């Protein structure tokens, strides 16, 4: 049953070194505040899962939190490369990163399999692709009815999934809307789930068929306004595209990244403090 707590309490309680951890959110509602808190608490050797690593995993990989990454598209959307991710893959900095690369269709199927308590996903995919050659987890299975050969891949079952949502009520029931990605599946597939939210409300007032995650499938709910920035929260704030562009310059060199990390994450107490530092540094650096 969901318990309202601070994000630092939730990360301390559920995210331990060496666990398999997924922070999901497909461009929208990316749980940046939670990623920052994991960096701040100095977690190491995490087996990270996320379809689109985005800036948040670039930051976590560069900060040395990750031992491995399961993913399907690793770029800075509309800008180019994730430089910290590339540095880890190409040069093993700050630590070697084992990659388990899959496709979007596969990983979204694997999330569904995880949520459905099945050991593997089955899909029409990977035929002819070299991804099969470099990822031994991508295998084939024969349909017992037609004999057709299909791709089979392991379900995603993280120790902890973390998502960001728009609203939660006092009991910890969560409502999210807009682009939903795989967040519902991520929560249902994990042993433990942490949800950060924009707003705590008296009642969700959710229409039928809305994406509501009941309090009893969630462990911790944390109030973190702005917690998906620089991604966006539909109905609350827009995507900070300027930061995505700035990140390309910040992250390109190890030194500028480390300075940014020290000033914005390691020296700040929480996400509100980070936003305060970010806003003051934004005024100093021309866009």
């Amino acid at each position, binding site marked *: 049953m969901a318990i309202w707590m601070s994000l630092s309490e939730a990360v301390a309680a559920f995210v331990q070194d060496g666990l398999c951890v997924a922070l999901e959110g*497909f*461009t*929208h509602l990316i749980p940046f505040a939670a990623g920052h808190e994991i960096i701040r608490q100095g977690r190491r050797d995490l087996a990270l899962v996320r*379809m*689109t690593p985005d800036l948040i995993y670039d930051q976590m990989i560069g900060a040395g939190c990750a031992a491995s990454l399961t*993913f*399907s*598209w*690793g*770029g800075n*959307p*509309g*800008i*180019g*490369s994730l430089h910290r*991710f*590339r540095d880890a*893959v*190409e040069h093993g900095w700050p630590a070697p990163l084992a990659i388990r*690369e*899959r*496709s*979007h*269709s*596969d990983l*979204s*199927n694997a*999330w*569904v399999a995880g949520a459905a308590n099945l050991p593997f996903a089955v*899909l*029409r*995919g*990977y*035929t*002819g*692709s*070299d*991804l099969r050659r*470099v990822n031994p987890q991508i295998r084939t299975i024969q349909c017992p009815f037609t004999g*057709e*050969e299909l791709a089979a891949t392991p379900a995603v079952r993280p120790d902890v999934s973390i998502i960001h949502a728009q609203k939660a009520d006092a009991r910890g029931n969560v409502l999210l809307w*807009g*682009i*939903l*990605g*795989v967040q*519902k*599946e991520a929560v249902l597939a994990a042993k433990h789930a942490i949800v950060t939210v924009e707003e705590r409300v008296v009642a969700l007032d959710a229409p039928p068929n809305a994406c509501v995650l009941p309090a009893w499938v969630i462990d911790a709910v944390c109030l973190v306004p702005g917690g998906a920035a620089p991604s*966006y929260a*539909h109905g609350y704030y*827009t*995507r900070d*595209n*300027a930061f*995505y*562009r700035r990140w390309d310059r910040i992250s390109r060199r190890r030194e500028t990244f480390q300075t940014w990390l020290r000033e914005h994450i390691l020296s700040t107490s929480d996400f509100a403090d980070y936003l305060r530092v970010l806003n003051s540094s934004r005024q100093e650096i021309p*866009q």
Partner: protein
Amino acid sequence: MNAARYTSEEMMTIAAARTLRNGAVCFVGIGLPSTAANLARLTHAPDVVLIYESGPIGARPPILPLSIGDSHLAETADTVVSTPEVFRYWLQGGHVDVGFLGAAQIDRFANINTTVIGDYAHPKVRLPGAGGASEISSNAKEVLLIVRQTRQSFVEKLDFLTSVGFLTGGDSRQRAGLRGGGPSAVISDLCILRPDPIDRELRVVSLHPGLSRERILDNTGWRIRFADDCCETAPPSGMELEILRDLHRRTRAVHGCVGDIA
């Protein structure tokens, strides 16, 4: 009347937009494919249905999305479904007519690489990866590819085959059990290529205005062939240019950049 001035990039986007037929259900990749698909929607194909992998179906963004999950896509779509649903029900379910994709490398059989340049374990350049492309390329009824043409991108041998075209040519794609029809056209900044109906090797079917065959040969990593009836691409019309530039202007005003860099 003087011919309108335009860039090779504009010619590529406009030629790509023209290949998308009105009414098609199109699964769109971010970047150049999204620009071309939206230009088609704003010109000759108002009834095209754009599907983005983040979940919007029937998106009509007023500006180009910078990321695959921009709010403009969700706000203007007929419906927004979850990402698993997009891939399972809509793509694998057989509802996508056209997949519209880009690539870092392409070979003579229109197989594409979006994963690495160099060796996979020790890459020279680590690219973003497959995303939705590997299953779009295998499951869409037809695939359009938009790729800038250089010797580095049009290669004899891919460093990594991320998403299938016609594999080793002939009927190899069909024999592998792939359901979708495969690439029907490749649009570059120099020319338009289509697969030969028998051997499935790409042939240049149309040169963009003013470009020589030598220019194409110089920018292709294999001995590229030209169709017997190879012609010249019609130059961009004033209206096409105006609508494309207006789209970029609106996008720049909101995002601060043009939205088709990736």
